[in-house]
């Protein structure tokens, strides 16, 4: 077994027993990245120097006989919308191409304090907006199971890096499925925590009422370790809460699992349905009770999610004005569009940038990619006078219906099983022409996001040689329950 194949617990054991050093572990991953990332394109930045330096420190601790935390010396990759002090944090956007983070995100700070070794920053859909990582301004990330297919998104770089052994584990962010769906496409375990369980401080905001940071790992136990390391109240995030995670022995025998009929309808790939149904049978053999339930407002979740997420995004992304977060390349101000008629604004039709408004229009028009602009437009539209009630407010009211559906279901069952996505990984380029078809890739993950519920994605089988993930949705702050059930069902390949 190569060092880069180890999970967190195995690597920790090896370090403690002095079978290998943290430096050797890091070098093994750097070698693996050099060999593999040409094919996969999971990383935007490799932090080789810093990683080797931290490894040396950890080796010193071990040599001096000190007890080390379980995450000490273990290489992690961080999604590039999570701030890492002194390291480029781009959000896979041209507008932040040269931005060096001024401070660490709280989750990163906590991991660093435990001795974690950051090995690099991973690719994503620009500002986490997408379901395939094809919206990265730099390059798409490929699926390790089939490089002609997408890694999923928006945490595609993190998922692909874990799946192809280029790091032991990774952090991602999830707004409407951005951790769970790429984990499913790449065959790794992931957790989207309850809204408020993990601090969002230092996570570049996309949709603030939905965003959560969570782990992508090789095993369910690893997800539990990382979640416990990053969760908790943070004075820098007013929506974070004091830990109320219950630790208890789970009695699987009495557990009731709900299967919502609305998630097994036309449009789901037959191979995916087969794998999920087989997994439900397997769970039944563990002694749990299976119950069919109904979440009748599921069909409204997708439009409600997209209206809310884009509205919040249009406000959050207003801060990128080209005058605060590093230099935006000169050509982005002066660039001339060759085949466009005189632009509706200066700067892109050849006219001179005269004042601050011209500058904003030009910097933002050139600096944001197509999907980001599309979402800002959509959000600004649904928030604008005359449309606010029909779109934005209607969506927020519908969110209550979806939340009520879950409340009702959870009065009868303990957890809910669904597929993570209606299909396995799709082809690169397959959905880029039709934005709506890309949005539909999130159809099974957005409901838990709207209701703020925790959900894990666990690999449970294959269809056409591509991984399929099971989504386990739990009650608020019952991460331990869904992880425990996940670990009983999950078998490491």
């Amino acid at each position, binding site marked *: 077994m190569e060092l880069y194949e180890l999970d967190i617990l195995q690597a920790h054991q090896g370090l403690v027993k002095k079978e290998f050093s943290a430096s050797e572990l890091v070098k093994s991953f750097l070698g693996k990245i050099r060999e593999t990332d040409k094919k996969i394109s999971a990383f935007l930045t490799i932090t080789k120097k810093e990683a080797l330096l931290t490894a040396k420190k950890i080796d010193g601790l071990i040599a001096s006989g000190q007890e080390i935390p379980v995450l000490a010396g273990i290489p992690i990759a961080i999604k590039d919308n999570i701030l890492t*002090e002194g390291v480029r944090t781009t959000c896979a956007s041209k507008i932040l191409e040269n*931005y*060096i983070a*001024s*401070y660490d995100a709280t989750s990163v700070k906590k991991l660093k304090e435990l001795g974690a070794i950051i090995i690099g920053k991973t690719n994503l859909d620009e500002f986490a907006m997408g379901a395939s990582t094809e919206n990265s301004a730099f390059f798409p990330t490929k699926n390790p199971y089939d490089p002609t297919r997408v890694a999923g998104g928006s945490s595609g770089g993190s998922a692909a890096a874990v799946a192809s052994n280029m790091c032991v584990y990774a952090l991602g962010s999830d707004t409407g499925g951005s951790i769970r769906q790429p984990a499913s496409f790449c065959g790794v375990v992931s957790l989207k925590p309850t*809204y*408020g369980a993990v601090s969002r401080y230092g996570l570049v905001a996309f949709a603030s*009422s939905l965003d959560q940071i969570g782990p992508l790992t090789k095993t369910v136990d690893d997800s539990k370790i990382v979640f416990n390391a990053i969760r908790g109240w943070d*004075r820098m995030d*007013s*929506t974070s*809460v004091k830990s109320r995670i219950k630790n208890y022995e789970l009695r699987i025998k009495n557990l009731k699992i709900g299967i919502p009929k609305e998630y097994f309808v036309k449009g789901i790939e037959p191979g995916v349905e087969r794998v999920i149904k087989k997994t439900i049978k397997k769970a039944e053999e563990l002694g749990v009770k299976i119950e069919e339930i109904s979440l009748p407002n599921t069909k*409204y979740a997708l*439009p409600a999610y*997209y209206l809310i997420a884009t509205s919040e995004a*249009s406000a959050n992304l*207003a801060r990128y*004005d*080209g*005058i*605060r977060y*590093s*230099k*935006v390349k000169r050509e982005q101000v002066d660039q001339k569009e060759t*085949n*466009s008629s*005189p632009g*509706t*604004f200066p700067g*892109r039709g050849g006219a001179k940038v*005269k004042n601050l408004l*011209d*500058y*904003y*229009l030009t910097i*933002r*028009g*050139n600096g*944001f990619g197509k999907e980001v*602009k*599309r979402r800002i*437009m*959509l959000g600004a*539209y649904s928030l*604008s006078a005359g449309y606010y009630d*029909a*779109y934005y407010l*209607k*969506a*927020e*009211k*519908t*969110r*209550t*219906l979806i*939340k009520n559906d879950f409340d009702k279901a959870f009065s009868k069952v303990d957890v809910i099983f669904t597929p993570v996505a209606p299909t396995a990984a799709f082809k690169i380029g397959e959905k880029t022409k039709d934005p*709506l078809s890309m949005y539909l890739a999130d159809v099974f993950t957005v409901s838990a996001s*709207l*209701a*703020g519920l925790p959900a894990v994605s666990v690999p449970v089988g294959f269809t056409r040689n591509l991984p399929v993930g099971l989504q386990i949705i739990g009650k608020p702050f019952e991460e331990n329950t869904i992880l425990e059930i996940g670990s009983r069902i999950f078998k490491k390949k």
Partner: protein
Amino acid sequence: MITKKEVQRIAKLARLGITKKEEEMFQKELSSILDYFIFLKKADTSLVEPTFRPSEYFLKEEFGKTREDRQETQPAEKINKLRDAFPEKEKDYLKVKSIL
């Protein structure tokens, strides 16, 4: 169908400079997305209040507690790092284009 004029109005509101080509593209795409989303109308929301944040419900007692509003001194190193990110500056000031 959204009109071109509406697309221009929204783009200006959002401070996005768009080309003629993008104007056409967004007109088509936003129209088809909004056409699809409009079936949200059918959801009966007459009896419910909006949920702006999910935690409003399950975290009633501690939701929205804000920090005391007072000045906090930050280390010079942190301030310098934020200043380093200014694309243009004069001494310690951020330099921007004139507003008018």
